[in-house]
């Protein structure tokens, strides 16, 4: 049966019990990338492929890549949007280095993405879009699909997707534009066949999403999906399809989670553990807006969200809500964090608990809004006037956001301090399988508010009375961790004033005297330093001492871990340590970094952690620095490791 004889939509779907006309091969892992115009719905089909693969039991890791412009002119290079997914039968940590299968919906998408396709990889193009106008917009002088080089390098499948898709949805009374809008589902259907995926979850999704509101659109998308699937099944262009077996993940119940979502769930969970309400204030900014949106949808968890007039107001209102006794949180990206700096300083001075999330993106200035980078570490560390210490934590993967942001909340409450929580665009939008925890797994977080005569009251004996032989509430009397009491408005008898002027030790009254200022600066610094005694020790994968330590932080975890694991498997002398606590550093870090001949610090910046490590430990660390708005490829790290081991 040839595809030309039978109308596509009428081909019966592949029958799992019947004979399969095509070869079915097993492979370990596949990296697939969908790319097309930003209006082509690539993120949607990428997300669907991810869900289906994850629920099948593969390990997955994703890398969405959007243009900064919402709708750049159709067909242009600037308007290309992509979604990469690595799905595997192994335990994986990255979305993959080289692409095995590239689906390109137009010439611009081909041009910007084909360089990442491995030699011999599968290239599926919508040949209908390769006409003069689109070729011109992409800057092609001749049709690349006729290029003998391209044909020799890849397994090229020219699929007339626009036409086939129109045929598949014909008869539903859709206009041409509406019909064409379904072609992403046609492409998805085709790769579902190619990788032997179950269509059902996506069909259910389509019915659920459009079924009630617009049954015709739902039907069209369903037909497009089946049309694509059946095309793969019946056309002679494809001779083989593939299966990626289930991964051996730890037993349990899983779901897929994205970084921003995990951050939100972690925040809400931590608030509940502390028996407190979340006050969240933010200003829309890529790639952090998802946090505001997701929290706004969790009002039934008692969450109060406030979309402020600007970043400054967002941070300032957080100071106000923290004073009033809430778990106060804001999130932004680099440009917004710059604006927040002043009020973060107020948070440091008033020693109130609050969380500042920085979903990092390419900078400086507006920079690369939709691309990832790790270049705000020094901003987090030093981006305020005066000696203004703030603890910093950085998540290493989407799922880690859930756990680590709870640590951030714990530290903020326990030490009465603002805490910065760093993620990045890659983690925020990336997804991975996540073993579903049970709320009862998490112990409560203790929060004390002094009331009446209990707690934080000075006395004449210890020199903190009011001079009339009476005890008096002392807003800056510290406990053994250096934390001051969190007395909240509404508590009778504890009326007190705080503010941005230097505070007198213990009483908290305004005090500019030289010795007091020195003491208070050191109090704040030592309090943050002391947190090192209340966080886990740093761990190392590989030999405890030796030739080379690779020290990483944040979202590079996956690439670096995979690189070191593969080197270790080859018997190379290399170790990996990944930092999640960046201020203060874990107390055994000095010992670790001094245990190796060489220390390599790979970062998506020009060497910010390296500066801190060299400054703190006088270790001659070497950098591997990539500042391209893209995560590391595993191979880039492996090459650098090899280079250092050989030299």
């Amino acid at each position: 049966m040839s595809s030309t004889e039978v109308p596509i939509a009428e081909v019966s779907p592949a029958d799992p019990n019947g004979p399969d006309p095509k070869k079915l091969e097993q492979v370990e892992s596949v990296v697939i990338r969908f790319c097309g115009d930003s209006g082509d719905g690539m993120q949607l089909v990428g997300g669907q492929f991810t869900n289906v693969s994850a629920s099948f039991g593969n390990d997955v890791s994703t890398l969405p890549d959007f243009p900064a412009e919402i709708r750049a002119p159709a067909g242009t290079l600037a308007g290309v949007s992509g979604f990469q997914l690595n799905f595997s039968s192994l335990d994986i940590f990255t979305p993959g280095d080289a692409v095995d299968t590239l689906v390109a919906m137009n010439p611009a998408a081909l041009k910007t993405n084909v360089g990442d396709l491995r030699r011999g990889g599968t290239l599926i193009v919508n040949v209908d879009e390769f006409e003069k106008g689109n070729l011109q917009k992409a800057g092609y002088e001749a049709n690349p699909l006729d290029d003998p080089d391209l044909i020799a390098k890849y397994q090229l499948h020219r699929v007339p997707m626009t036409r086939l898709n129109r045929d598949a949805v014909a008869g539903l009374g859709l206009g041409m534009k509406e019909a064409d809008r379904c072609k992403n589902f046609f492409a998805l259907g085709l790769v579902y066949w190619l990788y032997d995926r179950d269509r059902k979850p996506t069909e259910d999704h389509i019915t659920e999403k459009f079924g009630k509101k617009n049954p015709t659109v739902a039907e069209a998308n369903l037909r497009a999906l089946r049309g694509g699937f059946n095309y793969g099944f019946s056309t002679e262009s494809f001779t083989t399809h593939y299966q990626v077996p289930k991964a051996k993940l730890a037993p349990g119940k899983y779901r897929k989670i994205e970084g921003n979502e995990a951050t939100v769930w972690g925040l809400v969970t931590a608030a509940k553990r502390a028996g407190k309400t979340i006050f969240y204030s933010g200003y829309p900014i890529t790639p952090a807006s998802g946090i505001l949106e997701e929290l706004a949808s969790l009002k039934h968890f008692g969450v109060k969200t406030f979309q402020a007039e600007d970043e400054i107001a967002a941070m300032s209102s957080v100071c106000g809500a923290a004073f009033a006794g809430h778990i106060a949180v804001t999130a932004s990206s680099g440009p917004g964090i710059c604006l927040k700096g002043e009020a973060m300083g107020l948070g440091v001075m008033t020693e109130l608990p609050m969380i500042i999330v920085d979903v990092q993106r390419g900078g400086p200035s507006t920079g690369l809004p939709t691309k990832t980078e790790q270049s705000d570490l020094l901003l987090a560390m030093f981006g305020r006037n005066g000696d203004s210490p703030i603890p910093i934590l950085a998540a290493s993967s989407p799922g880690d956001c859930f756990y680590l942001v709870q640590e951030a909340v714990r530290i903020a409450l326990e030490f009465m301090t603002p805490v910065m929580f760093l993620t990045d665009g890659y983690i925020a939008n990336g997804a991975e399988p996540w073993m579903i925890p049970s709320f009862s797994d998490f112990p409560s977080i203790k929060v004390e508010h002094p009331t009446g005569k209990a707690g934080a009251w000075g006395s004449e004996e210890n020199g903190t009375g009011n001079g009339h032989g009476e005890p008096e509430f002392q807003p800056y009397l510290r406990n053994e961790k250096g934390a001051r009491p969190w007395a909240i408005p509404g508590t009778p008898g504890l009326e007190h004033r705080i503010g941005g002027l230097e505070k007198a030790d213990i009483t908290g009254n305004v005090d500019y005297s030289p010795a007091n200022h020195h003491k208070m600066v050191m109090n704040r610094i030592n309090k943050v330093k002391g947190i090192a005694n209340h966080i886990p020790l740093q761990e190392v994968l590989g030999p405890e001492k030796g030739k080379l330590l690779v020290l990483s932080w944040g979202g590079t975890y996956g690439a670096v871990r995979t690189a070191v694991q593969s080197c270790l498997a080859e018997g190379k002398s290399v170790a990996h340590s990944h930092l999640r606590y960046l201020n203060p550093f874990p107390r055994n870090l000095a010992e670790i970094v001094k245990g190796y001949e060489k220390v390599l610090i790979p970062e998506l910046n020009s060497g910010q952690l390296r500066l801190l490590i060299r400054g703190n430990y006088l270790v001659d660390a070497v950098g591997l620095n990539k500042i391209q708005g893209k995560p590391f490829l595993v191979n880039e790290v492996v090459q650098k490791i090899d280079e250092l081991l050989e030299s």
Partner: protein
Amino acid sequence: MSAEIANSALPVLTAKDFASDQEIRWCPRCGDYSILAQMKKVLPTLGIPREKFVFVSGIGCSSRFPYYVNTYGFHSIHGRAPAIATGVKVARPDLQVWVITGDGDALSIGGNHLMHMLRRNLDLKVILFNNRIYGLTKGQYSPTSPVGQKTKSTPMGSVDNPLSPLCYAIGSEATFVARSVDVDIKHLTYVLERAAHHKGTAFVEVYQDCNIFNHDAFLYASDKSIKADHIVYLEHGKPLVFGKDVKKGVRLNGMHPEVVELGKGVGEDDLLFHDEKATEPSLAFLLSRMKYPDFPEPMGIFRAVEAPIYDEQVALQVETAIKKQGAGNFDELFNSGDTWNVD
């Protein structure tokens, strides 16, 4: 428990109860003293326990205010008091929150926050101490300094067109707008009381004398011997009459106000009658544009209308969500969407 019973259970407070132990550091004869004194008189009359008050300020001479009242207080950063107060109030609608600010703090560095606080209509009380100068930084011109004013930063006179705080507030949809003068003790007390009782954002401009850098800037409106001809007290439902012998009035001529002599064929019924409850802010805006020396400057309540209150609405949405969806269940949340088992 009814509000009355709740109130009767409160200890009776006096102005003294609201005095803090901090030494007041304003310059001698600064207008701030009087505003503080009237505030301390008003607070005990409100039937609110002391611990439920929060004073939030920005930066400037006036922003030292919270240190001098024995309530909860937050002396914050320049211009941000409205945003900080918003955080306090959204978190805790049960508190009575006052914002203390100045002309530079509120209208220059904090102009953006002021606008948004006003349009949202949080249940906050705002007092803007307008002295038409930067006092704390020692005498530069402010957004309310008149053109031509010579200050340290304008040795040849200011060329900067000033702004009227009340026009700004009315343009920002404020639901309560009022003005008074620091030394007009009775009137100031009345205005502060009215502000305290308003449901929604109450914005009060107080003409405040900076004795050091801009002394007597408001002499025309504060000097007992001359002020009657330069100000007009607004009373709801009453005509705008003023002058030493109460012989002058303000009448509308088309869209424009004009000053007229009473008698000579002009009676009170011909004058402009004040309506603080007018839903449209046009009248309030017209009044806020009346400036000395062309007009008497209105004192009192320009506008007092009701509108939904932001902090209440935020709380209400949370309540509604809980009612509709049930209190959030974490395990349900974690298990929502596509899940799968690995054995």
